[in-house]
């Protein structure tokens, strides 16, 4: 190889970190043990029937859907892909998790970061009685091709224990163990808060951070203030801790990114919850991924202009082919927001 030739360099030249568009696929197992993408995917039952799925467990699984959809998003310019597993692993052994096969196949075709979420926790095989730690489960996902794993309920409990102990690190939480081995950048915390409206800033328990909502995002009865209560178990159980507190605690424990949802905005297509995203991105120094509420290209430009988030995630609007990723990026560039330039 010849030594490359030196060039004149402008010493004032700068590059800019692009704001990322993350596409999420909510994946679950159907009755056949196949993985299907649920959000905005009203036709999956009929399509699976058409594709002739083998019925018994252990038979041929139809993994095509998540992989082919993800490949499409990759080709269309997604900066990152997140597979969010909404099936609980009540059956089977760890090596048989269909999501592992999805990752292995996806990583052959998709050369952008892959995140996998859901089910990363300590797990006991009901048949053999064997137990895997959250770190072991995560390791298997990393080996299958995941770059990051996202932790949900587990991280809320870890934050609660961290706060209750006055900021003591136990060292054995899933956040800490995975972060120690794979690095903070591999650990994403997924927070699912819901709004709790209050009359004024001092009406809530002082441990919760109360925010003033943006004028166009007030509560259904014109409520101006709220705090964001964290939930676990897919939003079914509420906890007495706010999203800002969980974000700060998990950052201390070794998280590298926060994926911030909002149950009130999810699936509404009315835009991201700006007050929430502003409060959390100002409270932590790790990157925040906005989630829940995207419906138009303007929502992306708005969240990047009005809050400190580094990435914005959407699922339904892409699955329904309402907006193309490139259209969003063009809108961002037109608004002066750096978007990834690709080949």
């Amino acid at each position, binding site marked *: *190889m*010849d*030594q*490359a*030739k*030196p*060039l004149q*360099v*402008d010493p004032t*030249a*700068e*590059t*800019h*970190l*692009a*704001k*990322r568009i993350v596409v999420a696929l909510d994946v679950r197992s159907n009755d056949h043990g196949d993985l299907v993408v649920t959000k905005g995917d009203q036709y999956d039952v009929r399509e699976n029937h058409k594709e002739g799925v083998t019925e018994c467990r252990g038979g041929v699984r139809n993994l095509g859907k998540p992989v082919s959809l993800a490949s499409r998003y*990759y080709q269309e310019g997604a*900066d990152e892909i997140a597979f969010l597993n909404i099936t609980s692993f009540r059956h089977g052994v760890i090596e048989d998790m269909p999501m592992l096969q999805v990752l*292995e196949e996806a*990583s*052959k075709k998709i*050369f*952008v*970061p892959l995140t996998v979420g859901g089910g990363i926790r300590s797990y006991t095989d009901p048949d053999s009685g064997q137990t895997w730690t959250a770190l072991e489960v995560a390791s298997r996902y*990393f*080996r*299958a*091709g*995941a*770059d990051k794993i996202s932790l949900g309920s587990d991280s809320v409990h870890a934050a609660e224990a961290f706060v209750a102990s006055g900021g003591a690190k136990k060292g054995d939480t899933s956040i800490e163990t995975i972060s120690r*081995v*794979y*690095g*903070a*950048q591999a650990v994403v915390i997924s927070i699912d808060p819901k709004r709790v409206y209050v009359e004024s800033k001092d009406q809530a328990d002082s441990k919760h951070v109360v925010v003033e909502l943006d004028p166009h995002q007030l509560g259904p009865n014109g409520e101006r203030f709220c705090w964001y209560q964290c939930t676990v178990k897919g939003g079914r159980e509420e906890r007495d801790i706010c999203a800002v507190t969980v974000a700060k605690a998990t950052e201390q424990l070794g998280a*590298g*990114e926060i994926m911030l949802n909002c149950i009130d905005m999810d699936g509404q297509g009315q835009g991201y919850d700006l007050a929430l995203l502003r409060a959390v991105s100002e409270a932590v*120094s*790790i*990157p925040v991924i906005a989630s829940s509420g995207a419906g138009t290209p303007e929502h992306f430009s708005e969240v990047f202009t009005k809050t400190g988030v*580094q*990435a914005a995630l959407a699922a339904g609007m892409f699955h329904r082919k309402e907006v193309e990723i490139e259209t969003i990026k063009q809108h961002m560039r037109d608004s002066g927001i750096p978007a*990834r*330039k*690709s*080949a």
Partner: protein
Amino acid sequence: MPEKLKVSLLDYGAGNVRSVRNAIAANGYEIQDITTPEQIVAADCIVFPGVGSFGSAMRVLKEKGFYQPLRDYLADYKRPYLGICLGMQTLFESSDEHEPGADPIPGLGVIPGKVIKFNETHMAVPHIGWNGRILHQDSAVLKHVSPDEDAYFVHSFYAPLTAENAPWVLTTTTYSGQAFVSAIQRGSVVATQFHPEKSGVTGLHVLKGFLEVSDCCWSAGRQVALGYGRLKEISLTAVVLLLSLTLSY
């Protein structure tokens, strides 16, 4: 099909390098895993996607007896080498990435200088995401990539630009105003702070450029070797002919 360069992959099993394998395979090259120091000595092209921490990577290289063979491999900058992320940082003399209070662990020491941490009070750390490159050298490795295409970074530590490492610098990148070395090249030794295997088509094209240039070197080397072999054969035939001629007289 003409014989192609084989890529030797330095994967010591500390994390996910599946994507690196897939990206090399997507470019049509075969991979063999380096498991012994002898394979480093014999390798035609080494790819080192460092995973884990600086200290753990260096420790493993030493434990497996790879440290000295790698230094020898890199010594004259003539043999194709691609370091990725930590695989670039380990080329430097040392890093601030170590346990608090512990002594810094030396790197391979091929490039002068130390790898340091981004200032958390000024910017979000790690630096995660897609960023650009400012070109410092005109290199065939980047011939398939347009200068304004972004690449994917994920790191908390960086190599600052210094007078000493200037001859190595292929590209720099800035993050919140902080400039850092985002790729190096000297001779056939190439390394990137960004992840080509995670940088979409742009990244595949960076790998393609590196592998093509390496393959070209390797084929040229083989041509010379083959030529030499044939020459030996011809002279041997001549000697035999001469001998038989002499004998027949």
